[in-house]
């Protein structure tokens, strides 16, 4: 087999809105707005620099609900750039960019191949005129390989994967079948890989993190297939913007200068990449001490940023503190002292509700007076998004405030 190489990227979500942003007057706003498109340009640049044979975009290239023209323009321009270098691009629609969204999209250059229907036949990729790979676009849950049998080409299946923490959307049986060499997955932001009997299932994650939960570097994967058909995966960072959660410990003796020093050290420990342009930091303060309470003060965070800017003044990387939280020593639900009296009864009611009393968000809404109204859809979406354990923890906290023996009188709003 002739060796070849390709880039596997997914979840570009071009021009998608960024979840956690600094203040509006932050100089990073422009970078934040364009970070997904910068990441895409980085993917294109990587493909050109690495002289890959083709590029796989395995789903969620953009979000149709964004109705963003810039996303599609950016995509088209990148594709045109790749076309100039003779690099074909194989695109699989995802959950946010279903086939219908692609049909209404700006016409793509000729080097872009879309799998818009389950009936689309696989595409053969040639390298210097020699076919080297067969690419399937799988839009359904079940994959049916080409019935013509093995043809000696490297088989790639582009299929959407389950969102983390679910495993890759490829069963052990499918991987063990040996008919497919590379399962290109695409949903979710977390990078993950599975190897079964020489078959690889891989999801490269997103080229750019979109919120503070998606910490660390993001990028795409360079896949190099050697003459024996063995793929080698290499992570290629592409994200210009990185969210990082940095933990700093304090104690009663920690001075302000010492805290700043620890923070700078913690930021310095972040392993940088050439594509990094800015870090958005979420501070997590552990331990006890007067500075722990100070950290939540916005002006103090600005002071931190000033110190960090001084430190990184010579660097091209810009740093901004997004938020700071105090690590809770006694998490909700795990009180240090056993509750008593009314609080205990409340917790009993909370933890052992009556038979028909709902405990999950959807059920809570269904039992409320607002159910069946015009806001059902919103509540249902929010119920899906909000973690039941957070609801429980908050309810527990409220009960503690109301019914704990040492709690002050309840003041109604």
């Amino acid at each position, binding site marked *: 087999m002739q060796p070849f190489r390709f880039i596997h990227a997914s979840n570009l979500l071009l021009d998608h*809105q960024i979840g956690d942003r600094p203040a509006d007057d932050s100089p990073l706003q422009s970078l934040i707005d364009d970070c997904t498109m910068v990441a895409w340009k980085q993917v294109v640049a990587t493909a050109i620099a690495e002289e890959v044979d083709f590029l796989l975009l395995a789903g969620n290239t953009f979000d149709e609900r964004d109705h963003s023209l810039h996303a599609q323009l950016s995509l088209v321009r990148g594709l045109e750039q790749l076309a100039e270098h003779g690099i074909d691009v194989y695109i699989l629609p995802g959950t946010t960019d279903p086939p219908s969204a692609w049909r209404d999209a700006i016409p793509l250059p000729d080097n872009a191949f879309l799998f818009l229907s389950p009936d689309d036949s696989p595409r053969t990729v040639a390298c210097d005129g020699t076919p080297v790979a067969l690419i399937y676009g799988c839009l359904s849950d079940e994959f049916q390989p080409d019935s013509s049998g093995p043809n000696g080409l490297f088989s790639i299946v582009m299929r959407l994967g389950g969102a983390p923490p679910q495993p890759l959307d490829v069963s052990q049986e499918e991987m063990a079948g040996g008919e497919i060499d590379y399962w290109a997955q695409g949903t979710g932001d977390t990078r993950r890989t599975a190897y079964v009997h020489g078959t690889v299932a891989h999801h490269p994650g997103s080229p750019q993190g979109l919120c503070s939960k998606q910490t660390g570097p993001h990028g795409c994967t360079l896949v190099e297939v050697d003459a024996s058909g063995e793929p080698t995966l290499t992570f290629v960072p592409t994200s210009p913007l990185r969210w990082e959660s940095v933990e700093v410990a304090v104690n009663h003796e920690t001075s302000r200068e010492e805290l700043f020093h620890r923070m700078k050290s913690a930021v310095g420990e972040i392993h940088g990449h050439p594509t990094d342009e800015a870090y958005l930091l979420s501070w997590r303060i552990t331990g006890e001490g007067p500075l722990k309470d100070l950290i939540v003060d916005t002006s103090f965070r600005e002071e931190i940023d000033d110190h960090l800017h001084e430190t990184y003044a010579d660097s091209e990387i810009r740093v901004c503190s997004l938020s700071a939280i105090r690590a809770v020593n006694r998490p909700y639900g795990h009180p240090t002292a056993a509750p008593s009296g009314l609080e205990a009864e409340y917790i009993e009611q909370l933890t052992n509700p009556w038979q028909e009393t709902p405990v999950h968000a959807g059920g809570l809404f269904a039992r409320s007076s607002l159910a069946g109204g015009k806001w059902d859809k919103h509540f249902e979406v929010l119920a899906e998004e909000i973690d039941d354990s957070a609801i429980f923890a908050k309810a527990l906290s409220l009960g503690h405030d109301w019914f704990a023996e040492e709690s002050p009188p309840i003041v109604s709003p």
Partner: protein
Amino acid sequence: MKITEIVINERGVWRNLHLRLPSSEMSVFYGPNEAGKTTLMKFVREMLFGFDAHKTTGEVAAGSITLSTEDGDYVIRRTRDNETYLTGPDGAPAGPDKIDELLSGVDENVFQNIFAIGIGELQELSTLHEREVADRIYGLTLGPRSKRILEALEFCELELQELADDDGKRGKLIELFERHDRLQSQLKQLDGVKQEYIRLANQRKISQEEISEIQSRQSGIDSQLRGHLYMQRAWKPWRAVEECREELASLPIIESFPENGLERLQEIELELAEAAEQRDRLKTEAKALIEDSNRSDSDRAVAKYESILQGLVDHRDWIADLTVQIQGAESHRNTLSEDLAQSLRKLGGDWSTDQLEQLDTSPAAYRRLIGKGRAYQAAVARREKLKQSCKRLSNSQERRQVQLAERTRHLGVESISSGLEVAQSRLSDLETLSELKLKKRELHRRQLGIDELREHTEVRMSPPPRFYLIFWFLVGCGLISLIAGVYNGIYQQWLTGGIFAAFCLMSLALGQLAKHHFEHGVERRISQLNDVADRNREELRATREELLRLMDDDTSVDHESDTVVLELAAIRECSREIAELESLAIAEQKMERNRARLKRANDKLYQSQRDVAGARQVWQQTLTHLGLPETFDVNEAFEFWQSLVETDDLRRQGAFAELALKGHREVYDSFCRRIAEVARRMHQWDFDFEQPLTIVDHWEQQLKQLHSNRKERQRLRREAKARFRDAAEYRGFVDECKSKRAALLVQGGAANSEEFEYRANAATRRVLLEHQLEQARQDLEAAGQTETELAVTEEDLQLFDQEHNQECIELLKLEQEDLQKDLQAAYEKLGGVKREIEVLEADRQSRMLRRELEQIRREMRAAAGEWFSLQRAKQAVVQLCHEAERTHQPVVIADASRYLVQITCGKYRNIWTPLGKRHLRIEDEQGQSLAVEKLSRGTREQLFLAIRLALIHDFARNGVALPVVLDDVLVNYDEQRTTATVQALIEFASSGHQLLMFTCHRHLAEIVQSQGQEPLHLPGHDAIAEAA
């Protein structure tokens, strides 16, 4: 505390009622409607709490109530003046504080709402909302636990309402949802931007292709055009060289010729021609001007009568004003005529303007009318006033007479004075009778006293046994003393014997004296008493005889009922009769005075009627004199007079208007006649003489035309003279030019101008051709050098068709222009598309919207997290609430549930109150929880009765034991529940509560009787009165 006795002196229908309650705890009183049950219940309440409430209604009440307590019986007595007396067990009065102590501090409201209730109180839930009562029922004094739960619940609800109210219309979350949807909608609208971009991109592509094509075509056409232009450039100089050569060969050779000869000749010719032309033109113009001035003569007739016409024209505006004035005067006259006719119609059918003219409407006549009218009105008013007064006095007199007669008849007397005499005599007799009776009784009592004294005296005539025992003891002692004295005097000492003898004598004397006293004093006393008794008896007999006489006279006095009470009643009756008769006598005197006043009023009325007749006659005469219709209504006459005056005024105004109109018309007609006369003189017959102003306007125009023509003719004649002068000057200049021309022809060797011109042109042409030939040779060389790529042969130049080549060039240029325009348009279009694309690409609205949307989503997630947490916390708190409601219900509610189960025969099993709420919930046998409002009236009353019984029980637990009074509270119960309720009440009473139940329903009394309780029948009021 129990009520053992109720005494009503007076209260409502009750008088002198004395009720002694049975010793059993439950007493059921049966009585029909209006028997006074409710009054009795109210009386009990009033006895306990006072009459304050009745002072305003004017009801009076007095009586007492006896309360049995552990300390003994207390009697509360209240007088009709609401003075309260409390008597304790020892009969001693107690202070008013003791009543409060007996009532254990229960106020009247609580007693009325809980202890003494009727059907009205029972049906009202609000009667259970008094503070003290509500506290007991609803347990409003919550403990810290319940308070915490309620506060938490309230916190939850308020927080949830802040986030989203129950209707989903307000709240932070709702606002976020609305903003989200709004932004989403805006974002969706931006989808059109993408389609627009695609469209523009397609257009851009098409435009670019178009531009390429045009540019390609332009290139080809340029090439063709260049070839044609080269041929054109080369052919012209080649052709010019050829032509110059040929023409030079054909031209003569001239040695000398005057310099600029041809120009000079032409200048002279030109000047000559111009001067001749100017001369001729001026002559012609002068002639034309003269002809014009002759033609502009206007109408001679107008010129002849110019002054007259001008005079008429000058009066034109005045006549126009006059016309308007005539129209205005006519309109005014017509209006006045209509008003006059209308006023006459209003006055009546027989009124005319002639009558109006004869009418005297002067102020003097008006004053006379007013004076007489007012006098007549005053007389009538005075008479009416007197009439009213007489009528009033007459009515009063009549009424008094009737009343007097009625009262006299009622008293049964013929006349007031005789009746008064009879009554006074009778009163005197009654007083005498009474005195005699008193005297009789006195004498009788005195006789009895004498008899008794005599009896006692007779009894005392025989001395008591002890008297004789003492007497004989004294006699014995005296004898013994005598014997002892004799013995001592004989045997021992004389002195001692003397003492003994003296003692003996004293004892004998005392005994004798006592015996005499009893035996002779009593007899004398009896004799005296007998004398007194005899005199008394005689006096009594005389009195009785007098009494019998008087009784025979006064039949109203019952012989049998010889009681002081009746005598006093008769005296009171007689006194009242006398008082009434005296008042009648006073009334009679008043009536007499009234009668005299009536007579005087009638006299005045007669006089006033005569005055009225006189005034009326004078009034009628005045009306007749003034020519007005006869009427007795002065105001009507005044109004008619006013109308007449107004109508006459209208008539006068109309006459004045007519005169003014006539004057205007005469002037106008005179003007018209003058116009007609002038027109006749000018022989102008076509005018409409009905419109003189039009004629005048026409003449005015003619006059203007005349003046205008006159000025124009003068101007034309002046101009014609000026033209003739100018023509004479030009004639001299023509002669001078002819002399110059002849001299120049001689110099050029020509006989005439044509020859001179030929010779001049040939000389000039030769020079020019030589120059052109040189220039054409140079151009030909230059053209050959411009297009080195192109080559052209002599043959091509000879075959060259310039026109055809020019046409080709023009066609190619046109095509090139078209292509240039197309290219320009394509570029412009492309530029526009590019600009639009740039605008679309630069549009950041989508990004801003999404950024805002993301922010809202984040806020929505935070708010929703809070909302879900509060919902979940609220669930738990509600469960705590229910638990508290199940386990921490007030004891009163628990007791009430028990009573309700018994009363409703188990249909309703439980009463409970939601935590912190002031309303009740009832659970039926299926466990369904119902609000009080959902219950039937009977069940609601049963619920309230159960609550009251529980409350009374609760009061008793706290040491407040007051009697319970129920006034027909079971009327809305069915038979089964009535029986059950009676059983419950009996059990309730047996637990130590005194229960007084009033009913007017026999079946209820029978049910009570069947339960072993004997109902008490309330006595009738008549029977009580009879007993009194």
